């Protein structure tokens, strides 16, 4: 058994971390708009991300309407449909989830959780947000240029992305690439902040292994992003040159509609390698913060230490490292060197092992816990279910021959929505219910929350679980309509209609959620200071919401890891990280024994 005697240490003095020059806002503008306070920047990031995310959501409804009822919506042309698909995918992956997890949650939680007053480079942090906003605006502007936004799929494969047979191949694609480049520049600024803050600004006693897993997840995801985004950046530059100057980085000799183009010699597959060298780590950039956050939600609401903390950390780091050597599993049928299949199938399936361990440890955290079925807990449980489901379908796709019939079908669409469009989004929701009291001092409405949870979870499962089977039938993705075939049964149409209805219902539940947030900010029940009785530092600030500079005159000193829940021998079922060992209330009878 593990040694769990309450720790006895000599008195440790207050933190001697050198005080940083705190940035002080002087005007309303610099306090709320051009603010350099990470918490304000976090809210700006989140607001922008959710706003553009809602655009992505509406686009998904339009797509679903077309797929579910192909005859009814004549205004959705094939071109428009592809533009919806592309913008939906790109918005959701990059501009919503990446920005929300790293820019939003990262900015809010990292300084608080490591016990810092702010990010280490507040000015750069602020610029990061404004560049991100610019990227979003450029993206949105592409909706209004002649020809509309690009319809090349979020993967932007050349040659089609820049040839005239694809919608938005003129201004649309160039704006898309420019927007991505801006996003990367903005992100790099933010990312440097997150990494250096975690490394350098931790408070006294906060060793790496005392960090909550949330910080580990966001930290590792940021490192991945810093290493992976350059690949997208290079390919964006090269494609822009191909499109605007007529170079042939990716363009072979091409005959378009009977007409010879000036390109020659390039290799489209090269782009795919670059794209997925970014693209696969990107999916873990979205997943790792969710992994981290959900670990904390489970632990807090099950009143139990996260099971196998070390394994969880190793798995996060291991998954991060491995994610750079699996990229070509998106290219099994791309026409790359066929022998790559052996290598990449092997690495891809290996990555399932650390991921599986995380899943086991989450469920083992529930085991022998004291499970409070609060909203964050419900969302966390729903996350495990949908993530395991999506991860398992990932194993189908990763196993190279199984991918051959399934690639580019609705099976893939179902896989990545389950694992990326549902699971991390559920974590976002859980996290919002969890940290809302910290950010506003008020609770969200429980009844609306329950409604939101059950409709979103069950609804999303109903959308995507059956969708896999459309893939087995052989329905390809990115199809405006299936049309007549001699193998797809009529009933597939009904299934599509059903999925559409489910998607609309789930979408409606989000409206309730947003309504809940907007009303609760002003009218919600006032919450206690630490309503969930959590141990991590963000809940130990003197004021809620935390004021400028996060902590009082003195930075907290950390005496234990973040998972001291239900420690035997203590009266409370949690001990915050910064409570001095002498102040921990012990159970008298058990003292000495144990």
């Amino acid at each position, binding site marked *: 058994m593990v040694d769990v005697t309450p720790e006895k240490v000599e008195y440790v003095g207050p933190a001697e971390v050198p005080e940083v020059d705190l940035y002080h806002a002087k005007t309303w503008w610099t306090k709320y708009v051009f603010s350099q306070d990470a918490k304000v920047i976090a809210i700006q990031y989140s607001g922008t991300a959710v706003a553009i995310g809602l655009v992505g959501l509406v686009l998904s409804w339009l797509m679903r309407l077309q797929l579910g009822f192909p005859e009814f919506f004549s205004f959705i042309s094939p071109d428009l449909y592809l533009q919806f698909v592309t913008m939906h995918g790109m918005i959701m992956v990059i501009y919503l989830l990446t920005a929300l997890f790293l820019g939003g949650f990262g900015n809010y939680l990292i300084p608080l959780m490591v016990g810092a007053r702010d990010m280490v480079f507040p000015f750069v942090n602020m610029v990061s947000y404004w560049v991100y906003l610019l990227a979003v605006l450029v993206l949105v502007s592409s909706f209004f240029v002649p020809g509309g936004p690009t319809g090349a799929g979020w993967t932007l494969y050349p040659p089609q992305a820049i040839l005239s047979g694809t919608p938005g191949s003129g201004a649309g694609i160039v704006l898309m690439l420019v927007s991505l480049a801006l996003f990367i520049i903005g992100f790099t600024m933010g990312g440097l902040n997150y990494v250096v803050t975690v490394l350098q600004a931790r408070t006294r006693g906060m060793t790496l292994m005392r960090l909550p897993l949330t910080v580990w997840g966001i930290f590792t995801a940021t490192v991945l992003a810093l290493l992976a985004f350059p690949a997208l950046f290079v390919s964006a530059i090269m494609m822009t040159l191909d499109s605007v100057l007529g170079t042939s980085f990716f363009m*072979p*000799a091409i005959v378009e509609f009977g007409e010879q183009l000036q390109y020659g*010699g390039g*290799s489209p*597959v*090269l782009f795919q*390698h670059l794209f997925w060298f970014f693209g696969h780590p990107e999916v873990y950039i979205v997943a790792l913060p969710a992994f981290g956050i959900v670990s904390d939600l489970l632990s807090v609401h099950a009143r139990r230490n996260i099971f196998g903390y070390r394994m969880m950390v190793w798995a996060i780091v291991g998954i991060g490292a491995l994610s750079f050597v699996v990229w070509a599993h998106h290219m099994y049928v791309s026409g*790359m*060197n066929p022998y*790559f299949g052996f290598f990449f199938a092997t690495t891809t399936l290996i990555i399932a092992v650390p991921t599986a361990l995380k899943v086991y440890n989450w469920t083992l955290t529930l085991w022998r816990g004291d499970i409070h079925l609060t909203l964050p807990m419900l969302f966390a449980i729903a996350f495990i279910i949908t993530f395991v489901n999506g991860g398992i379908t990932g194993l189908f796709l990763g196993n190279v021959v199984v991918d051959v019939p399934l690639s580019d079908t609705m099976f893939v669409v179902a896989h990545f929505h389950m694992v990326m469009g549902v699971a991390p989004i559920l974590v976002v929701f859980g996290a919002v219910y969890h940290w809302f009291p910290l950010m506003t001092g008020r609770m969200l409405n429980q009844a609306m929350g329950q409604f939101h949870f059950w409709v979103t979870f069950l609804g999303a499962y109903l959308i995507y679980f059956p969708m896999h089977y459309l893939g087995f039938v052989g329905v390809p993705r990115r199809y405006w309509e299936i049309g007549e075939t001699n193998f797809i049964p009529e009933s597939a149409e009904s299934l599509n209609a059903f999925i559409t209805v489910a998607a609309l219902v789930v979408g409606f539940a989000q409206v309730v959620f947003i309504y809940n947030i907007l009303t609760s900010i002003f009218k919600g029940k006032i919450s206690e200071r630490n309503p969930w009785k959590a141990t991590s530092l963000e809940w130990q600030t003197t004021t809620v919401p935390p004021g400028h500079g996060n902590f009082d005159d003195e930075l907290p000193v950390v005496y234990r890891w973040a998972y001291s829940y239900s420690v035997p021998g203590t009266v409370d079922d949690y001990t915050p990280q910064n409570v001095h060992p002498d102040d921990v209330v012990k159970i008298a009878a058990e003292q000495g024994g144990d």
Partner: protein
Amino acid sequence: MTTAEGQQHPLGIYFKIWGLLFVLSTLSYLVDVLDFQGYLRWSLIVIFMLLKAGLIVAVFMHMVWERLAIVYAILVPTLALMVLLALMALEADYTEFTRLLFFGGGG
């Protein structure tokens, strides 16, 4: 931080490393003997060379125990780059191969 314990390692480890260097050299020769061509050849030769250099630097010069961090910081990215270069070279060779076969060189 690790301190100056560099001197206290048993002599045996030097022999083991020496043996390892021998093996690496043999592998380098094998590249020649087996007549690997093109990129594969050069990547392999360079990789073996780097490994050897790394080992010598690391062990005989006590870098391992004092400056492992630096070795990691230089060796790991270089290796990663070599691997990427090798993979892409394989890919490009494959592309060029099909072009020669089916297009008579065009493309």
